[in-house]
């Protein structure tokens, strides 16, 4: 029979298992005497809701951003020419009771391939446009090579302060496309908060 050593004494393994089961059973029995059991169920959802749309023509200034038309998870920007600027508007809702500090990260994929050493965009800028108290200098994205030659990662780099608790902000991201850039582009973006976000 197998034995184990406990406090310097040799004890059969079978006896150790029996004692363990008894302790477990007794613990379970005791718990029911302590109190009734209460249960809380719920879902933890992302506190940040990010939406995008193409700019709406016919509206001007901040009125444009307050308009609730067309916000979506996906947009098609159609066709543009190399050398032009692609503008995509964003809406960021903070549903949490703490502020958002983090970075926006975008992965760009091109059907013709894309190289971080010679990226297809002259620059990429994020501009917060509304409400007025959030309007600030544009945030530049830096570029990194993605997982392969078809992906490049653009990210803000400064743990930027985005929304205060419960606030919604509006802005735009501008992609200045190089004149020689050609292909079908897919741009995926998300907000990555820093782990120790604090109330602003």
């Amino acid at each position: 029979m197998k034995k184990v050593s406990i406090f310097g004494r040799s004890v059969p393994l079978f006896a150790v298992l029996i004692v363990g089961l008894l302790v477990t059973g007794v613990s379970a029995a005791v718990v029911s005497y302590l109190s009734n059991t209460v249960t809380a169920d719920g879902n933890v959802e992302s506190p940040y809701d990010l939406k995008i749309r193409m700019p709406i023509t016919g509206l001007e200034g901040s009125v444009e951003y307050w308009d609730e038309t067309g916000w979506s998870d996906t947009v098609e920007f159609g066709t543009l020419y190399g050398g032009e600027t692609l503008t995509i508007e964003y809406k960021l809702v903070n549903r949490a009771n703490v502020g958002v500090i983090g970075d926006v990260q975008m992965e760009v994929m091109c059907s013709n391939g894309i190289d971080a050493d010679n990226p297809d965009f002259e620059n990429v800028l994020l501009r917060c446009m509304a409400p007025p108290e959030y309007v600030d200098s544009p945030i530049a994205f830096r570029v990194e090579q993605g997982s392969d030659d078809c992906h490049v990662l653009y990210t803000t780099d400064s743990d930027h302060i985005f929304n205060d608790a419960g606030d919604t902000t509006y802005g735009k991201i501008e992609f200045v496309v190089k004149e020689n850039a050609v292909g079908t582009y897919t741009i995926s973006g998300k907000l990555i908060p820093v782990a120790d976000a604090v109330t602003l």
Partner: protein
Amino acid sequence: MESTQNHNLRPILLSLLLVTVILSGSMAIAMLAPTLSNTVTAIGVVLPPTSQEISLIHDDAWGGSVTFTYGNEEHNDFAGGDTATVYLKSLNHLNRPLTMTSIIMVEKLSGTNAPLKPGHITFTYNGNVGYSGVETGSGIQYTITQMYGPGETVCDIGMTFNNAHWKHNPDPGNGNSNESPERSSEFMVTLVSTAVVA
């Protein structure tokens, strides 16, 4: 004996430790995931900001290549010194000037077997000379670098057939030694490529 039994407990303890680490990792991932925002996606196409086409007519029949016949075997009116004109239309979609480099290939499709040489024709673009051309085996390749404003621009390519090679036949049929070495030839002019100068 005691040491051997302690040794037996080691795999059990290690397994428990491993399970604990895996559970802790899973919980950490489950807690972290909701803090990211949803992902948004934009999809679209980026086209070149410029395009070019060529034609024998100033404002019609644009395409990637043209063919024409120079000279006339039957009527003996082949005259060196004449100029054939091909038009190059450039379209700049941006609202600022762009510099483009165009490669034009001139080939001789029929006539004598003598290959076309850079010295056989004088190439001009918009009246400007100085295009020497590069012999490629099938013809002569010319490179044009030019700045174009926004919108559409049409310029002319002139090809003057040099007297030294394309001679006029003033008196056909009388044994005159001044007979042209090439009475007529068919030529093809092709727009090989267009690129924006960075």
